[in-house]
C-alpha cells in the first residue's frame, strides 16, 4: 500500500504543478483556464489526502513518516525535470 501511496503522491504533485499558471504555460505554451486550474487543484489536493490516508493505513504513524519522505521524493524530481522536459516537449511540438 506504501507503493500505491507513492504513485498517488506523485500524481498529486504533477496535478498541483500543472495547476500553476507559469508551469502550465511552460509545458503547453498556452494559458491555463480557470476551470482547468480549479480541476487540477481539486484532483491534486484529493490525491494528496488519499495518499496520506493510504500511508496511514499501511503503517500507522510510521506511514506518515513514509509519506513525508515520499512527498519529497516525488516533488523534487518534478521541479528539476520540468524545465528540461518542457524544452523537449516544445521542440517536439
Amino acid at each position, binding site marked *: 500500500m506504501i507503493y500505491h501511496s507513492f504513485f498517488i503522491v506523485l500524481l498529486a504533485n504533477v496535478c498541483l504543478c500543472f495547476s*500553476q499558471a507559469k508551469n502550465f504555460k511552460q509545458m503547453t505554451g498556452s494559458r491555463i483556464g480557470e476551470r482547468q486550474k480549479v480541476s487540477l487543484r481539486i484532483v491534486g489536493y484529493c490525491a494528496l489526502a488519499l495518499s496520506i490516508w493510504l500511508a496511514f493505513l499501511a503503517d500507522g504513524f510510521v506511514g506518515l513518516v513514509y509519506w513525508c519522505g515520499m512527498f519529497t521524493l516525488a516533488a*523534487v524530481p518534478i521541479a528539476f525535470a520540468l*524545465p528540461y522536459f518542457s524544452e523537449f516537449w516544445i521542440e517536439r511540438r
Partner: protein
Amino acid sequence: MAPGSASTLKQPGFRQVMSVVHTWSTLVPIWVLYFVFITGTIGYFHIEVTSWMEPEIEHVSEPIDEARMLEHAQDYLSENAGDATQWIINFPDERKDTARLSWSRQLSPEETEGLSREERRALQAENRGAVTLNPVTGAIYGDEVRDTGGGSLLYRMHYVLRYMPRALGEYIVIISTFLMFAGLITGIIIHKKIFADFFTFRPGKGQRSWLDTHNVFSVMTLPFQIMITFSGLLFYVATVMPLVLYGPAVTLGFDVQNIITAQSADDFSEKNQELIKIIQEDVFGDTPIEPASGTEAEMLPLTQIYTDYRSRLPDHSIFNLIVQNVNDETSTATVRAHWGINRQDRPIDRYSAITGELLTDSTERQSKSPASDVQGVFLGLHEGRFSPILLRWLYFLTGFAGAVMIASGAILWTSKRRQAHEAEERRFAKKSLGAEAADAPRLGRGVTFVEHMNVATIIGLPIGIAAYFIANRLVAVGIEDRGALEADAMFVVWGLTFVYAALRPRARIWSELLWIACVSFAIIPVVNALTTDRHLGVSLVQADWIMAGFDLTVLAIAALFGVAGRRASLRSQSFDRSQNRTVTDPSLVPAE
C-alpha cells in the same frame, strides 16, 4: 525636505530584517552544518557501513534460528566470561546477519580505590570484551576482525565532531543547530511565494538557479528539516537547560553533585540509588535490578527465557538480551525489543535468570507522561531506528537533500557577493586605473577565501569520506589504534583539498575537485575487490545485499559526481573562452 534626511530614510521592513537574520544565522555555522548533515545522513546506515568495513565477518545466507544462536552465545560466554557481571547479546536482524556478544565485570570499590580517572578507565577497559558470533555455525570472530571506526565513528562525529573535547564538540553542534533552526523559521518568513514558486527551477541562470535550488530543497524537505533540527536540540535539553534535569532532581532530594560527578549509574551514591529504586518501583512499576548477593547460583538456559518471551510476544523483534549479575542468585535476563517510533517506549521484559519468573512485563507498562512521549517521538524520528529499509533510504535521501540545501545556500551567498564585487570592480575600471582601482582586488579576498572554503568543504568532505573507506582496506590489519588512523586519513585528505582549492584557478576548482570525488568513490569497489574476497562479483551472486548495496551506492555517488564534474567542466571551458575574448577585445580595455 532634503533627500536622505532622517524622515525620508525608509526603515527596513520585517521581511528584510528576517532576511538578514536568515543569511547570517545560517552562514556562520554553514560548514559545521554541512559536516553534521553529511555524517549524520551516513549515520542512517551506520550498521551497514560497519559491516562493509569488517569484511572478515562472513555473510550468513542461511535462515537464523534465534534459540540456537542463544545456545551458542551462552556456551561461549559461560566458557570465556563466566566471571563477568554483565553479558549483552545483540541479536541479528534485517540490517546485520551476525550476533554481537559483549561482557563486562563491575570493579569493586577496593579495586578502584586511589586510581585516577584514566587509570580507572583503563582498568574498566581491561575488564570488558566483545566478539561477533555467526548465529548459524556458532563460529566466533575475535581479534582477526580488523579494528575500525566503522559507520559508528562517522555517526558519532555528527554530534561530537572530532579532535576536540566532547563537551566542546557538543556545544559547537548545539549552537549551530540552534542557528539553523532560527534560519529555518526566518527562511519561511522571507519566502513570499512559498506555494507559487513550489516547483520553480530556472536552470542556467547563475545566481537565480542557485536560489531556486536552495528554495526547492528547503521547501520540499521542510518538515524533515524542522523535525531534525528541533529534535536535535531536544537531545541536548539537559546540556542547554540543566535546570530541566537538575531542578526536579533537587526537589526530589537527589544528591545532584553525585549525579554530575558519577562516571556511570554504578557510581551513584547510596542515597541516589535508593531514590532511583523508589522512583522505578512507584512511578514506573519497574522491578529494579538488585545488586549481586555474592551467592553463586546456576542460571537457566537462556533459550528457556527466550521460549517464554516468544510465547507471550511472538511478533516482537528482539534487539538484545542482557544478563545482569551473571551466575548469582539475583541474576536477571532482560529482553529488549527493537525501538518503535517512540524512543522512550520500547518493550522491555525482565526475567529472573535463575527461576525464569517474569519480573517486569512490558504489556502492563503504561506511558510515562505526555511530555515524555512527545520527546520520545521526536528523538525516535530523529534517529529513525524504527525504520524499515525503504524508510531508511527515504531518510538518507532527505538528509542528503538537506546537505544540498546547505551547500546551495553557501554557494548562493558567495555568488551574490562576487557579483556585487565584480560590479564594483567594473565601476572602478571605468573611472581609471588609479589608486582606487588598485585597491579594488582587496575587496574580493574575503569572498575568494569563502569560495575556496566552500568548494573544499562541499566537495572535499565527500573526498575525505571516500579516503576513510579506502584507508579501511589499505591500512594494515593489526596496527594499534587502526580505527583512529582511518579517521586521520579522512581528515588529512580533506585538509589537502583546502590546499588544492587555494592553489588552483577559481574557474577550475569545482570541476577538478568534482572529478577527483568521482574517481575517489569509483575506486572504492575496485580497492575492495583487490584487497578482499567480498567484491561485487561475489556479493551479488551470494545475495549479500549489505556488501553489494554499499559498493553499488558508492558507484552511484561516483556517477553523480561524474555528471556534476562534466557540467562544471563545460562551464569552466566556456568561462575560459569568455576570458580570452575579454582580453583580445580592445573595446573592453579601460582607457588610460
